[in-house]
């Protein structure tokens, strides 16, 4: 019965549900509890929240590194930092995890969005959703998609270039480093690229403005003592972090121009 539901529900939603609707599920589970959980809407949301929170952490680390681009040292600190990141085995593991989490976050968002779409096949003719919820919370999918596109462009432009492209070299105190700074500086001298970057950070800001606090709610971490603080930090985070990210290309564009 349970298997019928879990598989059948995804495959043949319409007809299957009619049949399933008439049945109260028995407790005879044929799936392992792990599969069962990952197939439940709550389990899937749990994955979204956990991966989301990890990615939020990643943003902090990534931002901390990137802010070195603003140092007036011609990119030395940044290039050294990039080299460490590329060679440290721990960072390597984290980085693989990071990619995996992004993938899980994306895949499960697609699964959940499809599921949610099927849950309301006929839309309302008139809807005043804006009176009961904020825009970002209803459009995480769209926001996420833009962020994903940005991510692909971003990875192609920097990660791929540095890793597999021909990166110029620079030497500090006789040691050779990849001049990642140069690649970044070249990219940020293009006004279109800077504009794209800034706009995408706007999308990220909206995504975070809902995602941050929402992840805590999904994890069940809601308490009248702490939730206001979480919401405040979430709002602050969703403004400050994307703003700082956006500041880098803008600042570099203008310093390069002058």
């Amino acid at each position, binding site marked *: 019965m349970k298997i019928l539901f879990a598989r059948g*529900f995804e495959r043949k939603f319409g007809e299957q549900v009619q049949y399933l609707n008439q049945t109260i599920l028995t407790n005879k589970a044929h799936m392992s509890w792990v599969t*069962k959980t990952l197939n439940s*809407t709550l389990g899937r*949301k749990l994955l979204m929240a956990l991966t989301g929170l990890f990615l939020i952490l990643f943003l902090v680390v990534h931002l901390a590194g990137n802010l070195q681009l603003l140092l007036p040292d011609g990119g030395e600190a940044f290039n050294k930092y990039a080299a460490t990141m590329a060679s440290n085995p721990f960072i390597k593991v984290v980085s693989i995890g990071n990619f995996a989490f992004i993938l899980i976050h994306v895949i499960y968002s697609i699964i959940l969005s499809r599921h949610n779409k099927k849950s309301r096949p006929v839309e*309302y003719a008139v809807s005043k959703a804006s*009176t009961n*919820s904020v825009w970002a919370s209803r459009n995480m999918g769209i926001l996420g998609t833009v962020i994903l596109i940005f991510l692909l462009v971003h990875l192609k432009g920097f990660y791929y270039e540095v890793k597999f492209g021909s990166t110029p070299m620079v030497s500090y105190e006789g040691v050779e480093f990849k001049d990642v700074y140069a690649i970044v500086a070249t990219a940020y001298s293009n006004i279109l690229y800077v504009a794209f970057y800034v706009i995408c950070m706007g999308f990220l800001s909206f995504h975070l403005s809902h995602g941050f606090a929402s992840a805590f709610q999904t994890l069940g971490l809601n308490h009248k003592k702490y939730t206001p603080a979480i919401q405040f930090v979430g709002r602050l985070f969703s403004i400050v972090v994307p703003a700082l990210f956006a500041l880098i290309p803008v600042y570099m564009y203008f310093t390069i121009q002058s």
Partner: protein
Amino acid sequence: MKLTLKVWRQKNNKDKGGFKTYPLDGISADMSFLEMLDVLNEDLNEKGEDPVHFDHDCREGICGMCSLYINGKPHGPKQTTTCQLHMRSFSDGDTITIEPWRATAFPVQKDLVVDRSAFDRIIQSGGYVSVNTGGVPDANEIPIPKTIADEAFDAATCIGCGACVAACKNASAMLFVSAKVSQLAMLPQGQVERKERVEKMVAQMDAEGFGACTNTGACAAECPKGISLTNIARLNREYFSAIVSSENV
């Protein structure tokens, strides 16, 4: 006042359905929204047309039978049930669009009437304390702190109308399920079956085809009884702690 009604008409659950427009005159501000529909139906009856079918019963905001998605909101512009909505919330000349609740789990049966038996099946899957009649301890043998009793009561005031599902962009039933899970998770009487209950109710909720919660908060904002989002967080908490610690492998 004069109104234009755009009402969803659908003969049965197989019919495709569509909107029909009805002009309506002589509506007084003191009428309830459903009394306004009564006037429309008297008109239709006079013309020999099929009256608009809609669910309603107590008309005092407690049975949860009335529904209606009015001008883009469940139960209309105020945070109350449709039966407690009065025409003074509208103005002369308004166009009012009336739609049924929209959700896969709530199929339309006729016009504005939907089938909400999915909610019953969720309760049947575990929304109770398994005690038989008789053989229970004296009521005062189970002291319950007033704050807990009050909070459990707040969750228990859910009327099962389905506005939360109707309001949610994902047609999620999390607020409904969380209200019952919360009530029983907070009370000492609910402890014995606490883990099993939440697992079963969530499984049934999913099986009915309700969507997943994306924490938009629309459900609580539209709930006529003000059931709060903290219940959803509690449901999440209850569920995760149940799956990692229950005996169901």
